[in-house]
């Protein structure tokens, strides 16, 4: 299968405290992350808040370009491209944010909100209305409601509209940053079904960011677990569910609520790291010895060289 997105040693750092450049600390929100996403799959990124999931997503979309590392889209490096040259790729990668209430401009009718993007990409004017109707229909919103304002819709409906807006650019990759965590459980299911349906109708690849392991394990083909800016485990869903390796993954799994007796095997037991490596930094060499090591075939685990 073809890789649609490849991350090579992506690092995003922010300046920390200190006025003098020599004393200024550097905080690495995303630290040396590498992985690939294959076309037409769903890649899940899991981790606690503050672990760098959203920063990574913004880096991938070059909203906040990474400080170091490369991002390749269909094998074309995006980092270093000028704004103008980046534009066509921007359209191919769209994002859906967590909170649908703040993602839509309350003063604009949803028709206007959706029109903006289409106008900017010089979509034929005569067809804009038709296209918006088509998109709304696709996500299950009555097209005749398009002149309504965001407050007239419920949370789930707003999230549908946000998804429709992202789709108006005809993207290939959709980054979903916790798209359902602000919604009720029953509405979550509706949105998740919608995402799966859309994938069946249009060729789409998802990068799905969430802290909900139940959901990610249901939806995704491959999962990356993030902790403190690093990917600590990377594996196909079946592998990681049946055999979580990294201590942090184990911790996440055991604290996931509602272990309703169906998944006793999921708690797992502590697993030894691959030969010559350890899960915690044993000595401070001043060098970064962290890397992703193959545990079993494509099941990767992050550990430190001994």
């Amino acid at each position, binding site marked *: 299968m073809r890789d649609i997105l490849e991350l090579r040693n992506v690092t995003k750092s922010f300046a920390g405290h200190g006025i003098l450049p020599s004393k200024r600390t550097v905080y690495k929100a995303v630290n040396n992350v590498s992985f690939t996403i294959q076309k037409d799959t769903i890649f899940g990124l899991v981790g*606690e*808040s503050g672990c760098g999931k959203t920063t990574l997503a913004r880096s991938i979309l070059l909203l906040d370009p990474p400080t170091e590392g490369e991002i390749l889209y269909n094998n074309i490096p995006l980092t270093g491209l000028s704004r103008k040259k980046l534009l066509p790729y921007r359209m191919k990668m769209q994002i859906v944010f967590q909170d649908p209430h703040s993602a839509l401009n309350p003063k604009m009718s949803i028709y206007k909100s959706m029109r903006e993007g289409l106008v900017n990409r010089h979509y034929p004017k005569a067809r804009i209305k038709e296209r918006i109707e088509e998109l709304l229909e696709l996500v299950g919103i009555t097209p005749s409601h398009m002149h309504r304002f965001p407050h007239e819709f*419920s*949370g*789930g409906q707003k999230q549908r509209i946000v998804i429709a807006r992202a789709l108006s650019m005809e993207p290939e990759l959709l980054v979903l940053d916790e798209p359902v965590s602000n919604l*009720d*459980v*029953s*509405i*979550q*299911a*509706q949105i*998740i*079904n919608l995402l*799966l349906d859309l994938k069946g109708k249009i060729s789409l690849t998802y990068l799905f960011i969430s*802290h*909900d*392991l*139940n*959901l990610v*394990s*249901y*939806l995704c083909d491959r999962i990356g677990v993030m902790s403190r800016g690093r990917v600590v485990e990377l594996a196909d*869903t079946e592998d990681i*569910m049946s055999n979580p390796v990294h201590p942090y993954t184990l*911790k*996440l799994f055991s*604290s*996931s*609520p*509602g*272990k*309703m007796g*169906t*998944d006793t095997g*999921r708690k797992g037991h502590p697993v030894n790291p691959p030969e010559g490596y350890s899960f915690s930094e044993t000595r401070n060499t001043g060098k970064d010895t962290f890397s992703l090591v193959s545990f079993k075939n494509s099941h990767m685990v992050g550990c430190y060289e001994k």
Partner: protein
Amino acid sequence: MELTIKDLDVSFIQGDREAHALRGINLTVGKGEIHSLVGESGSGKTVTSTCIMGLLPSPPVRINKGEIFLDDINLLSLSEEDQRKIRGMKIAMVFQEPAKYLNPTLKIGVQITESLILHLGMSKTAAEEKALDILTTVGLGGGKRILHSYPHELSGGMKQRAMIAIAISCNPLFLIADEPTTALDVTLQEQILELIMDLRNKLSMGTLFISHDLRVVHDISDRISVIYAGKIVENSSKTELFAHPMHPYSRLLLKSIPDAEKRGTRLVTIPGKVPDAENIPPGCAFHPRCPFAEDICKIEEPEMKEYQEGHSAACHFCGTGKIQ
């Protein structure tokens, strides 16, 4: 202490519009019991909790009928003065977003000691010592540093712990936790849930735990009530509810939870949304969304009936074998 809500019926009035938020809630939370109230947003969970606390302003709120008893005190008939003595002292509440309910301009220490000084008449120094104790109880053993921190200096989980510390400072007999973990991560969520269970064991407080997520409730509750459109539709012990849910709504809620086991299948959804409190459908309020609805559901409102000991539900077809 035992909390009993009897036939509580509450409306919001605005001009000639009336939103019927609660339509006869019956609920009993025993001593030392964690009772969960589960439902979608807009179903009346928070109205119930704020009504117990006496925090609903009237107008626009009108309590049509019903009583709330804490042991033998009728909370709804108390004067504002007496209510204030109960609030914080006997019943305490933890809110959903700690960041919103802590005063950003006051140090945590001041916010905890405030109620100690007010309710228990402690001196400032004694209150501070007690506050340190409480902080250790809730797992914020950072000593004086925490007392002198402002809310913005604490992380989300620490803020929620501080909220709980404020809530339990006067040794309340009853705790209301209104979605205390919704804004938190899974790992923090687990810690807060453990803390609430821990406090129940230590202080034998009755707890009303409000949530929209059945998975969270599964770990913590003794009993569960499912609320829909201002009415309780099912009430049962936790194990019973998860093993044999009766009401179609509870069954669908349980089925809509995503899980690795369900990979490759479509999730079960509940079509539509919770009815507007201004416009509740006649008959069984759930009938427009119910896959089992028949003509009788549109006309007649089902009564709450006990089908097994301690397990009751309000549906015409419960126990008939029709709901599969």
